[in-house]
């Protein structure tokens, strides 16, 4: 059996062969200096990693002479601006975040530049990037983005209220029921943006799916009994009965505030968000929480993973200096520095994940977070996240979130809501030219 240690050793050995041939640091700088005086504009949504980059930018400018105008935006605003920027092909942005859920749409529309020639020319150590995250940005031999975040879905629970982390859906429901009170809700459901991130864990756990076999066979499966059962369990039994009141409407910031104030016992979300509860200056429960894998259903455990990368818009007129920036930002040195200096555990390089200092730092709340994180990334290697790379997925998920929100509010039964959602999704897919009946 392949253990974590041997898996990492294999990955690292593979990358080591390449690392041995890595361009020496000083030599790598020399050609880059030809960009002295060049300015590039970079747009990313705001998380710990780009904030870490922001702090290190003076070093990059000193090394390469490239000045970077880094714009950090909220996620929703970033998505809106990106669509307009990319579809308008203005060339105003030279490097930007390639969002996982949009990757199919954006790559399908030809908006990101193929980075493969840059990777080959600069002898970038791409083999050190974990294959799971990279797969979302690869189409055949072409790579359109370099992942800087491989977020995994974990469960955070209040160990002062919950003695043992629930391992199955039934245990989760039972635990939520037992600890639920007016002051502390049993379960913190993800809000508007997050419903589509947490629900698939239950959908697949019950044996359901969004599509028959994405991306080739997109026949929708939302009206199947397994999907209805999953929606009934998740939205009706769990959120409606034991969820934080009103949380189906929350943004991430409100979820974090609710957890930091100790108002909920169990929260399933991404590692990047969960670690915010450990902030001792803001959290009243920093010492009372622990991490575990999200629970499993009859069909198994399906922790979601999300990956975001850096891409160069095809319309950029400064592709070479933009690549210099991406190469530096996703390098082992930069990623390791940011992981050690801030709360960025969701790294994408095997070498950083296996770094002793990194491992020591992320033994959080008595939990082996790197091991849980890696287990999720490895589980997703089975391919169940393929649904997220379907170009029409953002439109599909919008319908599903509306359905879940209506179920959680008691407006519709799971069957009615998902049957309607299924019909709407079929229309969306047919309008996009897919045969789904």
């Amino acid at each position, binding site marked *: 059996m392949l253990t974590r240690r041997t898996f990492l050793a294999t990955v690292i050995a593979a990358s080591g062969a390449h690392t041995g041939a890595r361009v020496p640091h000083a030599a790598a700088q020399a050609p880059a200096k030809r960009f002295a005086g060049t300015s590039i504009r970079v747009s990313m949504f705001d998380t710990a990693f780009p904030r870490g980059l922001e702090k290190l930018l003076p070093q990059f400018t000193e090394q390469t002479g490239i000045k970077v105008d880094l714009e950090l935006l909220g996620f929703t605003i970033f998505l809106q601006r990106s669509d307009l920027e990319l579809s308008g092909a203005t060339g105003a942005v030279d490097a930007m975040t390639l969002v996982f859920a949009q990757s199919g749409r954006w790559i399908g529309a030809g908006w990101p530049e193929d980075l493969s020639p840059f990777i080959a020319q600069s002898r970038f150590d791409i083999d050190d990037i974990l294959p799971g995250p990279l797969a979302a940005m690869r189409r055949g031999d072409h790579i359109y983005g370099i992942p800087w975040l491989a977020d995994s879905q974990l469960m955070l629970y209040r160990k002062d209220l919950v003695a043992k982390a629930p391992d199955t859906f039934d245990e989760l429901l039972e635990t939520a029921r037992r600890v639920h009170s007016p002051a502390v809700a049993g379960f913190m459901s993800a809000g508007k943006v997050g419903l589509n991130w947490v629900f698939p864990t239950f959908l697949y756990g019950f044996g359901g799916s969004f599509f028959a076999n994405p991306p080739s066979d997109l026949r929708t499966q939302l009206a199947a009994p397994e999907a209805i059962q999953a929606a009934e369990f998740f939205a009706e039994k769990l959120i409606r009965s034991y969820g934080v009141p009103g949380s189906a409407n929350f943004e991430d910031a409100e979820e974090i*505030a609710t957890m930091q104030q100790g*108002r909920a016992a169990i929260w399933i979300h991404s590692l990047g968000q969960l670690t915010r509860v450990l902030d001792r200056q803001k959290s009243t429960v920093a010492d009372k929480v622990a991490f575990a894998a999200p629970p499993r259903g009859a069909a198994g455990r399906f922790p979601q993973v999300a990956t975001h990368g850096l891409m160069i818009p095809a319309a950029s007129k400064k592709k070479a200096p933009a690549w210099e920036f991406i190469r530096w930002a996703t390098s082992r040195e930069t990623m390791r520095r940011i992981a050690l200096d801030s709360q960025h555990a969701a790294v994408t390089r095997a070498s950083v994940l296996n770094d002793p200092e990194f491992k020591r730092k992320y033994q959080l709340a008595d939990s082996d977070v790197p091991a849980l994180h890696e287990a999720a990334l490895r589980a997703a290697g089975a391919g169940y996240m393929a649904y997220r790379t379907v170009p029409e997925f953002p439109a599909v998920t919008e319908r599903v979130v509306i359905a879940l929100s209506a179920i959680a509010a008691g407006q519709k039964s799971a069957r009615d809501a998902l049957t309607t959602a299924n019909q709407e999704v079929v229309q969306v897919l047919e309008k996009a030219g897919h045969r789904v009946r």
Partner: protein
Amino acid sequence: MYLLATSLTPLDLTRPGSFRFTGLANYAALGADGRFWNSVRVQFELSAITVTAQVGLGLALALLLHRPLPFREAFRTAFVVPMVLPPIIVAIVWKILFTPLLTPLNIVTMPLGIQQPAWLTDPQLALWTIAVADIWEWTAFTTLVLLAALQMMPDEPIEAARVDGAGAWQRFRWIVLPLLRPALVVAGLFRLIDSFKAFPLIFVMTGGGPGTATEPTNYYAYTQAFTQTDIGYSSAMIVVMLGVTLAMSAAAVRLPGLRPDVE
């Protein structure tokens, strides 16, 4: 013109070449789209609640502030504050107030053992919650318009009625109200047209949910355009909205109520 032209195409920003003429296909799809008709119903419900309340409350407050009251100037200034705040700030403040576990109202309700409902995710309450925030924000506008009209009102007809023995209610009903009618119509019309733009409150407070319970047409058009880049379909919705708004404006300026009907 561009909006109109776009509404006759299936333009999708992710599909090059989708800017091609397909006639009235988007409009035909709108007619069969249950979510669109739901959004129209939500829009009219929201407008009806907010405009009625804002005109009614505005009138009451204007009559109150027209009287010589202590601290009248301070009251007038305080009333204007919600109106001059950026709408997004108003939305965030109300969202926090209506979030049961986060609201500062818990300081009062929790010791009393009162559990608040999920204001923003209860389908029966969510639209009313948005309406409350909108009324709070914009009642000051109708108050100011009506107060200005009251202050411009000639004293002679009221004095004449008083001399003739008319009571306070009769003077209000038969003299003040008819003289105020143009101002009432203008204030109501402005608010009605503006109520079609209650976007920030919905965007921040409910995101159109739960389900589509608080999704008016402009928000539905926004999601089609910006989360799905279906610009053609979204444009068709906006064209319909534009037509309705223009028709309402045209009808309103012809209202007989724009002229005071007191001889």
